[in-house]
């Protein structure tokens, strides 16, 4: 059987993590090809809807990464983002969405190694958890075929 190759999408800010991932490249540090990056100006720009769209469209895992606190190019975008993530993670978890599939991280433009670690660790973790079948199922309306009654 073919090994499960998770689809992981990374939403990163332009100034720190994107540049950090560039450094991973210039340093020729190898990481798993499962992760593909979408660039944003700032983590503050990353709308929570974007994360939900990613899961719906088949992402098994998500990485969200930006500048360390106090390092934001726009000075405070990442602080606002952090607040939203705190709330969002609470909500998603409460709604039964597997938040361990979302890795939040701070990766600076100097942390090429860290970026490779974040990617590789996330890929390994998602491989462990498996494909996000549950979420994909609702996109094709085939829910509750086998799971049985809820615990209400």
């Amino acid at each position, binding site marked *: 059987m073919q090994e499960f190759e998770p689809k992981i999408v990374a939403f990163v800010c332009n100034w720190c993590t994107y540049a950090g991932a*560039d450094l991973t490249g210039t340093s020729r540090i190898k990481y798993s090809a499962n992760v593909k990056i979408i660039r944003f100006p700032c983590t503050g720009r990353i709308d929570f809807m974007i994360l939900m769209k990613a899961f719906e469209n088949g992402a098994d895992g998500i990485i969200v990464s930006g500048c360390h606190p106090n390092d934001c190019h726009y000075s405070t975008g990442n602080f606002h983002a952090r607040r939203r993530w705190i709330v969002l993670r609470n909500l998603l978890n409460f709604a039964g969405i597997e938040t361990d599939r979302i890795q939040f991280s701070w990766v600076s433009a100097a942390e090429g190694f860290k970026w490779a670690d974040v990617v590789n660790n996330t890929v390994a973790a998602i491989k462990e958890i498996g494909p996000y079948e549950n979420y994909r199922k609702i996109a094709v309306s085939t829910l509750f075929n086998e799971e049985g009654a809820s615990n209400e």
Partner: protein
Amino acid sequence: MSRIGVFVCHCGENISATVDCEKVARISGELKGVEFSADYKYMCSDPGQTMLKDAIREHKLDGVVVAACSPRMHEPTFRNACAEAGLNPYLCEMSNIREHCSWVHPKSDLTTDKAESLVRVMVEKVKKNKALNSIKVPVTRTALVIGGGVAGIQAALDIANCGHKVVMVEKLPSIGGHMSQLSETFPTLDCSQCILTPRMVEVAQHPNITLYTYAEVESVDGFIGNFKVKVRKKSKSLDEHLCTGCGLCTTKCPQKKIPNEFERGLGFRPAIYVPFPQAVPNKPVIDRENCTYYIKGKCKVCEIVCPTKAIRFDQEDEIVEVDCGAIVLATGFDVLKPDFFPEYGYGKYKDVIDGLQFERLASASGPTQGMIRRPSDGEIPKKIVFVACAGSRDPAKGIEYCSKICCMYTAKHAMLYKHKVHDGTPYVFYMDIRAGGKNYEEFVRRAIVEDETHYVRGRVSTIYEKNGKLIVKGVDTLMGAQPVEIEADMVVLATAGVANKGSEELAQTVHVSYDAHKFFAEAHPKLKPVETNTAGIFLAGACQAPKDIPESVAAASGAAVKVAALFSNDLLTREPLIAVVNRQAPPVYSSCVGCFLCQSVCPYQAIEREEIKNRNGEVIRTLAKVNEGLCQGCGTCVALCRTKAIDIYGYSNQQVYSEIMALLND
């Protein structure tokens, strides 16, 4: 239907070694909306760019994706090339198949697949790109400099010498700042007044500089290139045009015992006064709080003696409106207040003074004509203790930072003392000696070796008075943490440099951010040290953090260059990648509901309120509006907006959405 061109770069072998570039180009060419695709050895080379330009013209391309290195590297290159070929530069995007693909993955089908999907993502994004034009903002070529210390003076002169108008606002009756209070300056020991006063005069006489002393900034509206500032000129109770500065009034004023601020309380001044002899402008003001006339309703001695009849008791504050294109903040610093050190008896014992007071004692124009005499009885102290880090680097006092200038001026004080009191013994209690700077370490060495200053590495725990002596109890950590007790005649505390009083209010008025210690915050600690987060507002000197004179002057010149660069064109050109609040035809106007939750997330105060009025002039809607001059394009507001009324060019909702779809649905 789009006509997109895809250009895949081999980057020599940097990409092609692990990615099948030809295949990527071929597959991309089959994507919907892609009109042309090609691969080439070096896209960034001249022939590569020519190929791109030719293809744009030949195939009438309306979008370009260059799959090559990081956009952080060559996005400007290819956008320029597009512009040269007549394609709007913002219709060009880059897929990063080098740093994010070929360099980090081994040669394999998977790697080529990834490159293909990275291209596909950008193709879908470009389809949603909009042609954008750079933003042009008109610039008023006048700079406002707030603060007339050495930093403000330097910035003002530099800008004025570039041919631009400058308005300088100083809160006190004279410019000069703390530097005018200093006796001599490290590490050269040249007289502070001698080097500063010519520059003060130059400010007053410069045809491009308008000087408002005894004035404060009341409000700041507008944005880069177009600030509207209200300045309150406090009443000096004087007609400045009539006054000749003869000074007769100041000698006749019956109030003579007002503690002199310039002398840091070590001398007295009258109620109508010029702060110091070399003041600029050299015309007096009436201190209404201490003037007998304003207190008791009669006196008017100054009015009687004034030969030109210049006194105006009924003069009121005046509000002046200044239109300016840039603002330089140079409001300087302050030193810690006495009540901070009960353990040192600062404020309790007359002979425990701060560094600035010592400057006045050592100054030839000071209250003792440069003799070091202690305030209590005028005796010459034979044993003097300098305490460095009084408050600085002390989390218990709430000041974790190093005040930076104290090590140097303490060494200077010890030297000046020794030069004036040859048989005296100076002690310095210190934590570390921080003498980084040109000729600084040598200077400290001189204080230790030539002027025989006793440096004791340790902190002072307490100071108390006993039998007319000040007992300084401390520890010598280099001698096995031995307790040290010195019976001193005078103690000088190198009190921490702190943000100027009112800096928080000023930051809020001017709309710049400030740090936990109320110092103004720079836009970037390394690369934008004189900029603030608010476009068009710059920092000079110690209002940002404690700085010595050379640093303050350097920062001021830096800020001046930024202002001059801003003033070098009639129009200011900016990248159009900014947020925008949608507008629609009435009666909808916009999907913005005017909740303004976006307003407080904006780091740049770029979100304004726009009132939509009906024909009768009644406000029917209040909508958010992004100020193009201020927005830096972070998009934090976009993610917060519930109605999706705010979007951002370059990273729009449609673009991002298309990218995710393309990335995941292969």
